């Protein structure tokens, strides 16, 4: 365990207390991720008012601050104030076991210098931490800098108004017209000739969102003033070939809805989530990089390309998801503080706070589900986590009769024998009520129509179009892409192969190859298998343990689990779009600055996932734009993470986030990009050969990378956050 403590020195320096949890030094879990935590603590020192007295190592060596790092309790404990003393009496062994850090404020001038070095890793880096324009000074996210960042990004997005827009632009425009002009009962039936491609296929709440965009005072005022032409809000013909392009005002209006409605929600969500992360958990060190977290959330190039060039509303949906996550994290933070005080009776106020946060989270998520059914794969996680965590109460048991009566007991630990978990219906009912209300509320107007059954069937048919096939016509970079790729290769080999193999084997193979396309049910089963033992099961357990055990961090675990479940659904889902990877990347951003492993995973996921989005902007005009955006953002993020996780092994060697593998994959991706956008259109397109080769290469390369990321995210979820909690 490690603590930093600095007393006030002079008038203008504050006291600085930092505490830090280290994982127990068991050989099995010895990854040196905590070193980055230490570094982020150093970062905090750096950004405090102490920084003006010198660099961190100067501070350390000059002895202004004391750094104590112990593997075991120091002998001088009696000299320290009460907090440590109390610990040292009865709970010494436990404190050392679970590695909970103690913040010890020493009397001024009292120093504890113990040169504790874990095997193979230094505590303090030798180089002064790089102070840079972006990262250090606004280290803690202030509303002012957040606002400035938002303003810059808004300007960037507004500059993109005249750039390329896909057919999704027309789709959303048509939905707006549909909800504006057509009667509600026909919203999901509007397909006059059966030929239009702009059918409404999002859940009802999104339809109401479009309705609100078309029918609000601002829009009507614009229409009245002649700023917006009525044609913009008219339904589109089935074929756009003869339709004149929309006016500039129309484009600006549609883009404006994304920027000023969708992105404001995303901004709010990012801000809340970042703030929640900074209050998360017992170590205050997360705060050091919250500015980074915020900036990399809101400036995600994937969202810029998808929402502001390609035209969609992903930012809004992800913003709602982030709000939900932030509520959950806050609930977790409340709980962990209450449980660590281990007096459940006195923490009733905190419990109600916690309940409110969790209810809010569930409600937001239910609303999100009613906007976009893509997030359905996260629903089991929410369900089981909340069941385990929200619906159980801790009871301090006087007699054993209660134990027998309660239908599900969990005897947590020998230390807390007096505390039992009891399932509480009074908790479950509000939870279920709120969630169901938020989810099914938007469906109600359709249910009160003439034929509610027909409406629901039609909605479901639109939402789950199983006829579309296993993969999108541009393969998303998932397991199925690999599957189909192998299938194609096998077909090719089989066709080209001479008659070397005997007829019978060949016949058998011809029967199997090309591989059969798995039916949707099988895929649903696979998905469930992918989610169940790891994500859902773990969520259930962690949710309940977190009540009685001073866990490392249920909130952190929850984000990990969100990331993993999103990855799983991306990998195994049916007819997945390439943009679904954003559901994993966005929550992962929250964790990126935690440990070096997480940072590495984040960089790799972004590298492959965002690369998979690049082919969406296929015009030559956007080639330079997307390449610059991708490269620039990746460079910025890698730089930031390298700086956050900076540490010196000694001498000139430095442990970096980026490894040789990453650099090699960057080279591969660069080659793929050059082939896709320069070589291929020049050489193959004129002759019409191999039209889909670049897309195939892109999705296969990205699929290989992302499969690794998927497994790694599983490992990190289990070992990074759960095992620490397991003891």
């Amino acid at each position, binding site marked *: 365990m490690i603590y930093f403590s600095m007393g006030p020195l002079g008038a*203008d320096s504050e006291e600085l207390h930092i505490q830090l949890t280290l994982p127990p030094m068991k050989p099995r879990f010895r990854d040196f991720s905590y070193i980055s935590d230490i570094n982020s603590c150093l970062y905090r020192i750096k950004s405090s008012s102490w920084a003006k007295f010198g660099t961190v190592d100067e501070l350390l060596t000059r002895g202004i601050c004391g750094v104590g790092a112990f593997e075991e309790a120091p002998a001088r404990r009696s000299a320290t104030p009460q907090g440590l003393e109390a610990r040292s009496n009865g709970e010494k062994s436990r404190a050392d076991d679970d590695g909970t850090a103690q913040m010890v404020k020493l009397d001024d001038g009292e120093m504890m210098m113990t040169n504790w070095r874990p095997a193979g890793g230094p505590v303090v880096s030798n180089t002064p931490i790089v102070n*840079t324009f972006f990262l250090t*000074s606004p280290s803690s996210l202030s509303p002012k800098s957040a606002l400035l960042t938002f303003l810059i990004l808004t300007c960037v997005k507004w500059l993109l108004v005249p750039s390329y827009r896909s057919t999704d632009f027309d789709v959303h425009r048509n939905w707006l017209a549909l909800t504006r002009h057509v009667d509600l009962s026909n919203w999901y039936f509007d397909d006059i000739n059966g030929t239009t491609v702009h059918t409404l296929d999002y859940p009802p709440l999104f339809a109401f969102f479009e309705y609100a965009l078309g029918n609000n005072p601002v829009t009507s005022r614009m229409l009245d003033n002649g700023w917006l032409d009525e044609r913009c809000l008219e339904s589109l013909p089935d074929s756009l070939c003869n339709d004149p392009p929309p006016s500039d005002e129309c484009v600006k209006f549609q883009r404006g809805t994304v920027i000023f409605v969708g992105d404001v929600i995303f901004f709010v969500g990012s801000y809340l989530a970042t703030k929640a992360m900074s209050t998360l958990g017992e170590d205050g060190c997360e705060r050091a990089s919250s500015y980074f977290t915020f900036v990399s959330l809101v400036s995600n190039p994937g969202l810029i390309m998808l929402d502001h060039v390609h035209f969609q509303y992903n930012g809004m949906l992800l913003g709602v998801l982030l709000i939900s996550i932030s509520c959950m994290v806050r609930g977790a933070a409340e709980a962990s503080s209450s449980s660590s005080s281990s007096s459940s009776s006195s923490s009733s106020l905190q419990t109600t706070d916690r309940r409110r946060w969790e209810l809010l989270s569930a409600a937001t998520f239910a609303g999100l589900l009613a906007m976009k059914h893509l997030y359905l794969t996260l629903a089991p996680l929410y369900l089981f986590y909340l069941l385990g965590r929200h619906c159980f109460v801790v009871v301090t048991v006087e007699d054993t009769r209660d134990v027998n009566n309660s239908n599900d007991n969990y005897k947590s630990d020998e230390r807390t024998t007096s505390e039992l978990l009891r399932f509480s219906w009074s908790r479950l009912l509000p939870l279920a009520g709120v969630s169901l209300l938020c989810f099914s509320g938007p469906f109600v107007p359709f249910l009160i129509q003439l034929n509610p059954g027909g409406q629901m069937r039609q909605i479901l048919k639109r939402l789950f179009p199983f006829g579309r096939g296993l993969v999108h016509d541009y393969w998303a970079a998932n397991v199925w892409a690999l599957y189909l790729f192998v299938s194609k290769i096998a077909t090719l080999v089989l066709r080209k192969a001479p008659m070397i193999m005997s007829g019978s084997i060949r016949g058998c193979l011809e029967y199997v190859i090309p591989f059969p396309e798995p039916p949707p049910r099988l895929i649903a089963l696979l998905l469930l298998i992918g989610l169940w033992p790891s994500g859902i099961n773990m969520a259930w357990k962690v949710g309940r343990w977190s009540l009685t055990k001073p866990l490392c961090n249920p909130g952190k675990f929850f984000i990990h689990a969100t990331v993993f479940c999103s990855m799983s659904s991306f990998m195994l889902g049916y007819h997945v779009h390439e943009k679904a990877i954003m559901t994993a990347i966005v929550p992962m951003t929250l964790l990126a600055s935690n440990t070096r492993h997480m940072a590495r995973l984040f960089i790799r996921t972004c590298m492959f996932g965002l690369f998979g989005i690049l082919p969406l902007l296929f015009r*030559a005009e956007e080639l330079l734009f997307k390449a610059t955006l991708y490269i620039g953002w990746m460079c910025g993020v890698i730089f930031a993470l390298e700086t956050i996780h900076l540490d010196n092994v000694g001498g000139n060697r430095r442990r970096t986030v980026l490894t040789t593998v990453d650099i090699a994959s960057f080279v591969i991706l660069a080659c793929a990009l050059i082939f896709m956008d320069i070589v291929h259109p020049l*050489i193959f397109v004129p002759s019409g050969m191999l039209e889909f080769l670049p897309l195939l290469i892109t999705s296969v390369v990205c699929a290989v990378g992302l499969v690794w990321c998927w497994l790694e995210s599983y490992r990190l979820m289990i070992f990074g956050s759960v095992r620490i909690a397991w003891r």
Partner: protein
Amino acid sequence: MSPLPLLHASIISFAILLRIMVGYHPHSGQDDYQGPTRQDSPPRDDPSSSSASRVGKYGGDYEAQRHWMEITTHLPMSEWYYHDLEYWGLDYPPLTAYHGRLFGWIAHAAGSSYGSFVGGNDDDASMRARGGRGEEECGGGGLNHACRASGNGGLASLGDLVALHTSRWGYEDTVGKMYMRFTVLISDVLVYFTAVWVLVSRLASEEAYEDGGMEEGVPPDERRDDDANVRTSSSSSTRVMGRRPHLLLVALCQPAIVLIDHGHFQYNTVSLGLALWSFHYMTLADPSFVRPIVGSVFFALALNFKQMELYHAPAVFAYLLGRCFRHDDGDRRGITLGRTLARFSALGMTVALTFATLWLPFAMYPGNDDATGFNVDGLVQVLTRLFPFQRGIFEGKVANIWCAMSVRPFSIRDRIPPTLLPLAALVMTLALISPPCWILFRVGRGDLLDPSGADDEMSSRSSQPRRPKGRNDDIIALLWGSASTSLAFFLASYQVHEKGILIPLAPISMLMVDAPRFVVYFSVVATWSLWPLLVIDRLTDAYVCCLLIFLCIDGMARIEASESSSYEKEVDIFSDVYITRYAPTFSWILIILLHLLDLMFSPPHNLPDLFPVLWSLVGCGLFCVAYLGTLWAMVKRTSSNKCQGKIQQPRAKRKISSTSSIPVMSILGVLLVSCSREIEGFLSPSTCCQKNIRIVSHHIKLRESSTRHDIDGFITQDLVNRALRPLEWERRNAREAEPVLNLSARDSDTSSLAVRADEVKYLMKDDTNWTSGHLWQVTEQHLTDMGILSRSETTLSPVHVLTIAPQLLRMPTSQVVDAARLLMSYPCGANSTAVIEGDPSLLTYLADDLQYGLEEYLPNMMFLGNRTHAAQMIQTQLKLSPAFALRLIKMGVDGGLEERSVSRALGNAGKASGKAVEGVVGEMGRSLMEWKRKKGGKGSLGG
């Protein structure tokens, strides 16, 4: 490896991204759109349009540039400047034409080879890729990949883009536009970005040195030996690391430059980048004078790309002229007329050669065949194309003096006959550019270098390694100066158009280190002044976005500065003069107010041009303030040494008086004085340049003190008074001069027993010889000859020396020279001025004392009597921690003095007592003699 390059890559990517995104917006004259109000009126005035041919033109600058590509690609050189001048005739210098030919040729080659294109044996793959995709076809399907282009029109349309004649009247397709945008971008990145990168590295590194940089080789351990300096050095150095990205961002995201080049469509960044490159090379110190010559070649290229670079030319010329006179490093022979002439002619030759190379083709291609084959007409034609004097004094509504003065109450165009207008413009411009040119000439000569070490005792106490400071003073002065001259041209010269404001903007945007608030102010005003033009180009959205991005970047830097730097407050306190705080605010309010007015009210019918006129009036005022600001900044950076120059070279004094006889100068002076206080505020750096502030304040103090004595420059009464203050050793000697043992003294002749100290005479004598400064002049001359004082790079200026050791004013020359010689040779016989540089007050000691202190006392006390060891120690310490070394030296000298004075006192005492004894004995003897005489007399009497 450090991750910092990643950050730089990210920033550069952002700058490129900004340009690409602005490029999505319409270019000038797209679809022949000529502004919201003048749908049917002829195209608005444009720099590249000729006045006679307003009818029957299409588009704007974009079409002009495309047309030039087409001309240069397909026509022989002799026709370039003759071809169909009515339709966007070529009127830029030859380098632009070559540049257009290069890109036109590429497009043509790509387009024409595309038809027969089979395999990939082309050199220019990337270029083809730009056109490789056709336009988006109407897919109709919901899946956007159905729209994936299979269009073959792409590259062929590139060929059409530059097809002669057929492409006329606005060939605008998306691929063509993209290609044109790409040519701007690639030129921008290759020329401007590199120039900015080089300059920013240079300027940021200077910051590092000045603030006690730790980048270079000073390990932290050695820095820690001096407690007082550890924190400043470490905190400031970390700040410095954060400054380079910031400088890069500011310089590369200049909204005006981005909007004009990548929105409106021009190739300004090429000429600006070449100019910045030339500034970079010119200001590098180089005794062999090669680098200034390279710089001049660059500048000639810039001039040949766009004639508007002439705005910078006076500054460059003045500076280079000064450089010809410079006494460079390692050049001890002094500057002779021959060397100056050689340098000057070398410069002239290279520039002439560059010009000749570029222009010769136009003369060699015979228009009408001559016997000589040399065709002057071609050159004349180019020149008349470049400088169309018939077009009037200004175009459209430009924010310059002439435009502002031609509004109704002044209506200058009616009062002065049009034939005189060019002359008036010339006179006015000359008057405005002469002060910056004069200063730049002095800077170039090297006698105006800013002694950043001239700040009071701080520098002598600082433990930082004394680096050759001010090695970037040249570049900063040149940047200010070129900004100043180009602003003068913009304000007062003939035939100006709005885009001319980019020319001062480019150097100013590099000056974020010096005056951040001024840079922001000027950038915003410059961008704002382009608003009427951008409205016509339909770039208003881009304008708002770029401006906001720029301001937000600045705001974030400000937040960073206020959070990380504890010096911010001090800076603010200093710059808290009331007017300075409100002057920029006032202009912001004005700007916003005008924008709001423009947005909300349409102009009355009888005044359709109300808003452009308002724009030019207000803009003229703001630019005048900016011009005065640049001038003031130059004066500020160089003022403290002006007087020094006067003393050093009497010739210079005469020149000043002769130039100041020009009445304009005096008017300007009055203006300057009245405005200087006002501008000071936003010139003063807001972020962490407390060092500069200190210098500035010091300079101001010095200037104030110097103005009191007009005749003799800086030798003020104050200085004389301070010089009269006795030195420590003088005081001691004086004390010693009083007799230690005054045992004797009954008679008058006993006073001769006391040892008289001759040195006291300096103190007592009120000699007019030194108060008038003549003595010091001689001393300074000697010191200069020894290479101590006038060395331009080491900034050991006489003012600095005298500030620290005023007593030198009255020291006899020979004594000072002896001391200096000793000090120069001190550590291990190295011939360096490091010690004197560290503490000039050492010069006031007697050479004898110094020698004893350094060679006897110090080794005896600290190094076991080993002299070489001591000297070596001092030498190494001088490199590592000069403050410590100086402390050692001081200790040695003072200790030596002490020791010797004590021993002298003892000796004196002994001598005195001896004399006293002698006296007593003598007296006794005398009395004995007398007695004897008496006795003898008696004896004789008796005997």
